[in-house]
């Protein structure tokens, strides 16, 4: 049901003029993808520095909450750009992306990463003042930092897999993969 709805939504987007223009342009899709990838350095770069500080790997003599607060804005700016360019990338190739197993897994990890960030942020606010000047954060925050690193590494790795066609709808007959990727037509044909 959800897969059918998503496919219909993807096909509707694909029929839009601007979606076709984005893909057809010589530079447009490349510039969009390049911006999405290069902005990683701003968004995830800032995030990883905050996580590394929690683990005592970077600037251990600077209060952790200060680093988190100062890098918060660049990180958010980076993520906003990532979100906009990411949405446009989906808009440019909607069916292909929506039916990509890697894209779906990436979205799940992205959701979990944001939940982790929200939990981590709340924990950090609650713990302020007690451990701020310690070189290494308390265990719950370290766990959150490690979870953040693992989840975001997963997001980037899965994002890198999207252009590859190893388990595309037309390249596999595994029903689990076909279902997980939302390959409605291929599942119906089996």
């Amino acid at each position, binding site marked *: 049901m959800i897969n059918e709805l998503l496919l219909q939504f993807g096909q509707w987007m694909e029929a839009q003029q601007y979606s076709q*223009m*984005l893909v*057809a*342009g*010589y*530079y*447009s899709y490349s510039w969009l993808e390049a911006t999405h990838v290069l902005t990683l350095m701003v968004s995830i770069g800032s995030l990883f520095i905050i996580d590394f500080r929690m683990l005592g790997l970077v600037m251990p003599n600077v209060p952790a909450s200060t680093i988190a607060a100062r890098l918060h804005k660049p990180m958010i700016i980076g993520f906003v750009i990532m979100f906009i360019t990411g949405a446009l990338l989906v808009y440019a190739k909607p069916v292909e992306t929506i039916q990509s197993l890697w894209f779906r897994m990436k979205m799940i990890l992205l959701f979990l990463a944001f939940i982790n960030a929200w939990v981590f942020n709340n924990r950090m606010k609650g713990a302020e003042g007690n451990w701020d000047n310690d070189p290494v954060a308390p265990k719950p925050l370290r766990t959150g930092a490690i979870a953040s690193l693992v989840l975001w590494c997963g997001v980037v790795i899965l994002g890198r897999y999207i252009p590859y066609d190893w388990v595309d709808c037309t390249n596999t007959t595994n029903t689990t993969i076909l279902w997980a990727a939302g390959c409605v037509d291929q599942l119906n044909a089996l």
Partner: protein
Amino acid sequence: MGDNNKWDDKTVAAVSTAAIMLGGLLYYWVGEGQSTVELLELAYGSVKFFNNPLVF
């Protein structure tokens, strides 16, 4: 900049290296921009970013 010498070895090396590298990089990027504009002009007679299949 240093107790005795304003222009010590590290300072001169830093300024000269940075200036040369910055000059080289700006030259490269201006050239890239120029060739992109030339390509657009070659294809369409003018530089435009919309309603231009070469861009969007």
